């Protein structure tokens, strides 16, 4: 399990981020100012820091420079979106940058990309199903289940965003590609096939007016 430190002085935004990342299965810790964050980084082990720039006591850039040597990847989260700030962030060694207000899926996708690049996470385990991204295999109770390429991609995106509803349009875009001429009905067909193959009729829920959600508690 990955441990993420969220440094954001705005309590509401901090809660928003932590509640979202805990949905998809990350552990989190909170800090509301730069100094506390620095103490926490010294004491605990984190796999990723989500860092606001305008912070009391010690601002995000200063904090990032101070903990640079530890090699923890950092994603800046801030209301500042000027180019010079972005460049400064990347100069300090930020992995990525998210500007407020941000989309939930954008936040999760960026966190996922950084964690996957840094820690080469290749295996998802959802209850009795193991998804190996490297080998592109899926096992249920050690029995291999054969999936087509599209079915595997669909399963991957659902697993990455577990507990988050994904619209049919998003799924179409992520799995079939931007230029796909398929209709959203195609998504329904493939979802049906996945449910059948994995026996996940109750896990892949249809969310009214939104799309589908892989529910794992």
């Amino acid at each position, binding site marked *: 399990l990955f441990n993420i430190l969220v440094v954001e002085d705005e309590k509401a935004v901090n809660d*928003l981020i932590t509640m979202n990342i805990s949905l998809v299965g990350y552990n989190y810790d909170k800090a509301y100012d730069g100094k506390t964050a620095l103490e926490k980084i010294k004491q605990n082990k984190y796999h990723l820091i989500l860092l606001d720039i305008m912070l*009391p006591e010690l601002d995000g850039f200063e904090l990032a420079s101070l903990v640079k040597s530890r090699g923890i990847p950092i994603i800046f989260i801030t209301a500042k979106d000027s180019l010079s700030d972005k460049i400064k962030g990347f100069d300090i060694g930020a992995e990525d940058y998210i500007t407020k207000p941000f989309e939930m899926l954008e936040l999760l996708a960026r966190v996922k990309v950084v964690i996957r690049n840094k820690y080469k996470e290749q295996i998802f385990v959802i209850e009795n199903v193991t998804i190996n991204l490297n080998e592109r295999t899926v096992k249920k109770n050690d029995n291999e289940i054969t999936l087509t390429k599209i079915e595997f991609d669909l399963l991957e995106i659902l697993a990455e965003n577990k507990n988050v509803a994904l619209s049919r349009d998003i799924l179409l875009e992520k799995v079939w590609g931007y230029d796909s001429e398929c209709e959203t009905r195609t998504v329904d067909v493939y979802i049906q096939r996945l449910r059948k193959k994995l026996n996940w009729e109750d896990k892949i829920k249809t969310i009214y007016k939104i799309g589908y959600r892989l529910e794992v508690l």
Partner: protein
Amino acid sequence: MLFKQKIILATLILFIAVLDINSYIFMKFSEKAVLETEYQRAKNEQSFIIKNINDILKYTKPKDVQTCKDIVKSYKTFYKFYAEDIVIYEGEYIPENNDNIIINENLESPYDKLTLVYIKDIENIRRIKTKQTNILIYINIFSCILLVTFVYIVVCVFTKPMNEILKNIRVIKNGDYDKRLLVNTKDEFAEIAEEFNNMAISIKGNIVKLEKAIYEKQTLAENMAHELRNPLTSIKGFSEYLLKGNISENNKITALNYIYSETQRLQKLCNKILDISMMKYENINPIKLSIDKITTEIQTIYVNNTKDIRLNFNIKSKYIFGDYELIISLISNIIDNAINASKNKSKVDIEFSEDTNYSYLKVFDTGCGTKNTQDIFKPFFRDDKARSRENGGVGLGLSFCKSIVDLHNGKIYINSQVGEGTVVTVILPYIQGG
């Protein structure tokens, strides 16, 4: 054309014109005088010659014209020193060109049909004239060179400050408004330099003012964006979370609570911003307000404050002049700050006093104090971000107070010791006989 070239050219033209006209007139006069002298001499010589010829003819008495001519011809060499040529003509001699002095005169009878033509060469005079012209040309060339050199040097020396001024103006034009012109002469250039320096100083002043105004505007806009974006991020994020997340009932309530409270914050922010911007255009009509009435109203607002803080009124004045709503707003904003800074169950002192010209309002607290007694009036400035937000502040309270005080032509300032407390003083004009 450059200033220098203009001066040199003008001087040169004037000089040549004066020199040449003078020389020309002088030459003309001297030529005329020489010619006259020469003519007079020729006249004398001619009369001497014709007298001699007449005498000779009287003695020799030649019979015909040809003999006459021969006799005169034979004497030609004799008179060589006096005349270029002497010829006998029947009738008048019309000269082909006018270069020589020619005098015609009839001989005495019986030869009065014949004319003696006296021709005097004035070649030497013409030679002198050519020589004079040549000398004049040399003088012209030489003095022109001398003049140009001299004028060039003089102009260079005189226009040196101008070059300095030009060079420095270019430097200043490129944005270096701290550069000053230095001219040590005591002429118009020094005046230009001084005026120019004054201009640069006032431009610099204006630029500094503008830059400050722009900086303040930008900071205000940035702060406003920041203040707006945080609640927006929360509202948007939590509604998306509710919409898409597979979440527990507890988390649902947390999310909804946040959406509600952040919307309230936005509303509060909107109201405050509107209040402040309205304040800038509004004109108030200060009226006599009873301080008793004001304190009663203030007491009802704070009778049940969450921190259980006691308000202590010390009233040494009866009236204050201002707009009732705004004065209440002003005092309650200051008291809000005092309460926020104070510990539970402490007290806040409020003092009203006056002298002949001003009313004074002082609010004392024993709270945490601040170092930022100037910045604290700027919009969105927060002395302690986290604490201020928890109290539901939007960072506009004191900025709002300052607008109210400005509108009343008053003054507001803060004295504070970190950890010991703060005194906010408001001074409003006291209208005599109002």
